[in-house]
């Protein structure tokens, strides 16, 4: 197959991927969009196999087979509650693949010599620069995603890991990478550097991997939606950089689209927390030493029994359910849906209010509630619920904390002051389902729990909700 035909097919593949992304943005077309972009990907893979550079098939066939098998089995087995960490892990693999591509291409250059490798398509300095970017961004993506995976799956504490001199160390590592990167790019003209070029590249790979770990360590579990979106953007950019190495249009375009979409999601998530990206990445938010913990909360938390909660709910006309990460941890989504159904049968209006950063990845709660078959039209966004919240009889907070903390609205000394929240404290009654009396992940006391209209339902969220449902069924 000639180079022109291959490139024409790449255009087709790009069109399919672009259409796919566009269709992913609307609920009615999303599934088809995903399929179309998958077809685009398949076209790109198949046509690449006709590339004249490809001489050996054993590794390729084995790689395609093994990769498809692992990815397929993993994706079809994972429970919906395990979704955030799996997406993080897949994302990291994409980053590591880009590292391997960059490194592998460098080895090929060394073997073939520049003239034969470039075929007049590029210049050594440009290709080296692209290789540096591919391994740098890809390396950060891999280890960063992996640490995110460990934090999300609970194999590692979700709290930020901070130590003194952390920022200085990160800055130093980054600066060293930059210097080495520049040296490598210029290495063709520097006879003193040239013999060590491969060693420099290996050092850059290692330092990039280190930087990914160091970068995500200080970021707390509640900020994970931002981190995942950000790393997603990075994995695309790493692919794009790899595209510049092998001078391949579809790789550049598709990688770039992912980069852009990741940036948009990141910005949306940051806005939902009223924080800048810099603050999320470098703020060490929610650390135990976090200082400025806001005004002391006065009063005490008042518990309520399941029976009493039932009588209040039974008399309600309008109920809003606010799910959070705790619902995911307790895997309570099916029980919650059942509660919603029994309430509805009693003629009570039920809505689910979803904060943009509830959970551990963008849209996390939507996925879980969709899995539990909660009707689409009952899912409401924060801005739709807040104006009508004063007419709500009961707001049930299930494992959510910071996103309903009224300190964000009225306590200027609170670290989360200014973050948009769901104003459940303005509802007539609030039930908060919570494991125990401790502060949430962010280490912040939640002023909501001390309000006079708030009652605590202690215990495992799934059990508590099931008991409530049981009460309704007994009657």
């Amino acid at each position, binding site marked *: 197959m000639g180079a022109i035909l291959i490139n024409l097919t790449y255009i087709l593949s790009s069109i399919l991927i672009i259409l796919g992304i566009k269709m992913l943005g609307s609920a009615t077309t999303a599934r088809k969009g995903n399929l179309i972009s998958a077809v685009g990907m398949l076209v790109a*893979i198949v046509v690449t196999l006709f590339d004249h550079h490809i001489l050996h098939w054993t*590794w390729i066939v084995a*790689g395609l087979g093994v990769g498809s098998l692992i990815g397929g089995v993993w994706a079809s087995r994972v429970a919906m509650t395990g979704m955030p960490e799996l997406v993080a892990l*897949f994302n990291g693999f994409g980053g590591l693949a880009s590292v391997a591509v960059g490194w592998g291409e460098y080895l090929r250059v060394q073997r073939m010599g520049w003239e034969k490798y470039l075929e007049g398509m590029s210049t050594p300095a440009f290709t080296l620069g692209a290789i540096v970017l591919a391994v740098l961004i890809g390396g950060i993506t891999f280890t960063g995603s992996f640490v995110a995976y460990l934090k999300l799956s609970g194999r590692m504490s979700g709290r930020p890991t901070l130590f003194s001199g952390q920022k200085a160390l990160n800055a130093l590592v980054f600066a060293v990478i930059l210097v080495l990167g520049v040296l490598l790019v210029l290495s063709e003209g520097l006879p003193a550097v040239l013999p060590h070029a491969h060693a420099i590249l290996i050092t850059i790979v290692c330092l990039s991997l280190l930087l990914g770990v160091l970068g995500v360590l200080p970021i707390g579990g509640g900020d994970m939606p931002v981190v995942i979106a950000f790393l997603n953007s990075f994995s695309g950019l790493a*692919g794009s950089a790899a595209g510049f190495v*092998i001078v391949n249009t579809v790789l550049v375009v598709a990688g770039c689209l992912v980069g*852009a979409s990741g940036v948009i999601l990141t910005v949306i998530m940051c806005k939902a927390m009223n924080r800048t990206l810099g603050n999320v990445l470098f703020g060490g938010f929610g650390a135990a030493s976090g200082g400025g913990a806001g005004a002391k909360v006065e009063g005490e938390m008042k518990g309520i029994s399941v029976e009493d909660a039932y009588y209040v709910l039974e008399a309600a006309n309008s109920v809003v359910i606010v799910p959070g990460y705790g619902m995911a941890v307790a895997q309570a989504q099916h029980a919650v849906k059942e509660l919603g159904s029994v309430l509805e049968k009693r003629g009570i209006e039920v809505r689910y209010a979803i904060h943009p950063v509830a959970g551990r990845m963008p849209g996390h709660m939507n996925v879980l509630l969709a899995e539990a078959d909660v009707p689409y039209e009952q899912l409401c966004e924060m801005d739709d619920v807040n104006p009508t919240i004063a007419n709500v009889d009961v707001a049930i907070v299930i494992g959510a904390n910071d996103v309903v903390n009224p300190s964000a609205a009225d306590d200027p000394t609170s670290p989360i002051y200014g973050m948009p929240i769901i104003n459940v404290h303005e509802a007539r009654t609030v039930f908060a389902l919570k494991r125990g009396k401790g502060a949430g992940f962010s280490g912040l006391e939640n002023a909501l729990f001390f309000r006079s209209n708030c009652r605590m339902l202690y215990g495992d969220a799934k059990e508590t909700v099931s008991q409530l449902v049981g009460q309704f069924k007994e009657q």
Partner: protein
Amino acid sequence: MSLILLLFTFVLAVFLGFELIKKVPSQLHTPLMSGSNAISGITIVGALVAAGAAEGLFASILGFSAVVLAMINVVGGYLVTDRMLGMFKKKDKGPQAK
């Protein structure tokens, strides 16, 4: 010249990317993210070239790893996204809508 064209394409793709995804309802954030995550596996194209053209054991291993990793990202990413969207869709037709 082809380099300039490639950079040109890159810049245009940045703008296209922003325009495409500017307005996405929040319930689609997860599928969009995992779908675009699958697309980032496009680095498989680079992996195939790296694996197919590699000479020497270490380069071949690098290429092979790149193909495996990128393929996990691609296949896993698309499948997971499809599973998720399947759940969203089920409800649209579902009888329990009031």
